[in-house]
């Protein structure tokens, strides 16, 4: 009786555990399942290792206190904000001529899934996550960008869940209101994440307005990459005309955003290098010579940009593959952001006679960090898969259902 009542309130499909395993046994599906299971096992092993040995199993140091897990957390929350932005094109801003509403419900669900995966990863980087939940409330540090980021992301998740429920119930007006609030809070949270780096006056390479604004731009880019990936899997690359129309629209936006991002990244590097500011110029030159920087530029900007340009935004299948490549580039983008901030050793007075002080801080992620990070991806995959079974994420009708 209670279940029926709940299902009346929240339209969910009545599925059993057995139904989760009832899928077409195609090569791609089996590969996806195998990858997800491997990632989940990695997560369990990584977390187990962390619980046994604490932070010592991470390669983070006093000089490089933030490592791969922070980069992975940023990767997930950027994905979440991006999906929220893309989802809101349809259900908040009502750009229905280009069919953006067809992706809204899936996007909002994706934004919930990715932020939960991000929280799962960061829980093992923060030394005392339970203490965090208590003292964030009873002893808030209002001057801290991390406090604002964490608090706003908590609120954002709440609004996303409420919006998703209204979308499921086809209460589009309410979904629009909560979608708008969620978007505003999400953008605030996300730019605060940028300010976590932008406020650091000890780190000239990150200090300033660049990261808080660039985060919003790259979130939008990430959201569109994921939109192509999700829709590619949903329709097995055989897109119906209404979806093609939507994807063409998204690809055009993406082309514009990638162009803008090229300007952002280009001028950031040029002003850093030619500005000549100590602690910024030398670090920028060092970054310029790192392969991860070029991985970011080539994979996240140039390849998808060229595919959009050459295909005139209509080569949807190619864009699916370019988006997969783009997401690898986005990962490097996040890794670079975190690592590059900490490249420059801060205190050169810890010198030892007849030994040159280190010029750059080195960092290579540990096995456990890699296990937990890939495990986060596995969590996102499995949550998304369960969601596709549990909820009807496709949107086909545009007319509003009567308010209940």
């Amino acid at each position, binding site marked *: 009786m209670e279940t029926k009542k709940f299902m009346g309130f929240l339209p969910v499909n009545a599925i059993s555990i057995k139904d989760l395993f009832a899928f077409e046994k195609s090569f791609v599906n089996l590969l996806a399942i195998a990858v997800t299971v491997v990632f989940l096992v990695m997560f369990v092993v990584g977390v187990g290792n962390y619980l046994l040995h604490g932070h010592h199993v991470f390669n983070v140091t006093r000089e490089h206190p933030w490592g791969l897990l922070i980069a992975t957390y940023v990767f997930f929350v950027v994905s979440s904000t991006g999906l929220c932005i893309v989802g809101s094109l349809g259900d908040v801003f009502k750009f229905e001529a280009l069919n953006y509403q067809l992706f809204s419900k899936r996007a909002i669900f994706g934004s919930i899934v990715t932020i939960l995966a991000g929280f799962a990863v960061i829980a093992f980087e923060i*030394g005392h996550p339970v203490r965090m939940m208590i003292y964030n409330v009873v002893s808030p540090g209002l001057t801290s960008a991390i406090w604002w980021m964490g608090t706003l992301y908590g609120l954002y998740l709440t609004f996303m869940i409420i919006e998703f429920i209204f979308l499921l119930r086809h209460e589009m007006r309410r979904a629009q209101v909560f979608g708008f609030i969620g978007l505003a809070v999400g953008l605030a949270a996300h730019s605060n994440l940028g300010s976590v780096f932008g*406020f650091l006056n000890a780190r000239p390479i990150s200090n300033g307005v660049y990261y808080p604004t660039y985060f919003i731009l790259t979130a939008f880019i990430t959201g569109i990459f994921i939109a192509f990936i999700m829709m590619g899997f949903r329709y097995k690359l055989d897109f119906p005309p209404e979806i093609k129309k939507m994807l063409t629209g998204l690809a055009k936006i993406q082309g514009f955003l990638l162009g803008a991002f090229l300007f952002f990244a280009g001028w950031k590097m040029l002003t850093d290098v030619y500005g000549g500011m100590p602690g910024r110029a030398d670090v920028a030159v060092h970054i310029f010579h790192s392969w991860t920087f070029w991985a970011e530029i080539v994979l996240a900007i140039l390849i998808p940009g060229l595919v959009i340009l050459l295909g005139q935004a209509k080569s949807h299948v190619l864009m699916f593959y370019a988006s997969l490549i783009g997401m690898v580039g986005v990962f490097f983008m996040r890794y670079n952001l975190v690592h590059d901030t900490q490249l420059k050793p801060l205190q050169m007075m*810890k010198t030892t006679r007849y030994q040159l002080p280190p010029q750059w801080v080195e960092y290579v992620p540990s096995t456990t960090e890699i296990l937990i990070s890939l495990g986060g991806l596995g969590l996102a995959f499995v949550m998304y898969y369960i969601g596709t079974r549990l909820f009807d994420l496709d949107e086909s009708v545009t007319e509003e259902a009567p308010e209940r």
Partner: protein
Amino acid sequence: MARYGMALDYKNCINCKACEVACKEENGVLLGADKHRIWVGANAPSGEWPHLDIVSSTFMPSQCQHCEDAPCEEVCPTHATYYDENHVVRVNSDKCILCSYCMNACPYDARYVDDRTVTVDKCTFCSDTRLARGETTTACQNTCPTKVRTFGDLDDPESEISILLKTRDHFSLKSHLGTHPKLYYLT
């Protein structure tokens, strides 16, 4: 209430490391923990023999700068880092969530993870040990054989440190960042 600071007559330092030992002993810093609460940097003479620049061969004792505008205090999400009644920058380990933001934000690399409490720690000017017992010196100052360190109340015009800062030239580290360190290097 005081406003504690420290003056370092660093050219007197002979790198005997007695300050590091005294600090570890007094504050329970783990044995083998290198450059944790305080440290002494050693600069080799520059130039090539026989044209060595003797002046460049110095020892530079350092530690948390106890900034007036401490970036670590600003960025702490749970107020675990705070100014105590004597303007000393302290860490409440019960509130520290080990997000490591303060370690990233400190321009002086003065913070580290304390394996005893699994929280971030730093120099406290012996506030919870010697000062709490009513003593007026820090362990590092008390043990220094060449009187490199002078610790005291900057608000008291008659204190030794106030007089030193009025009569000797001095500089602060990374003063362009506006953190207003309360560690002064006498020249």
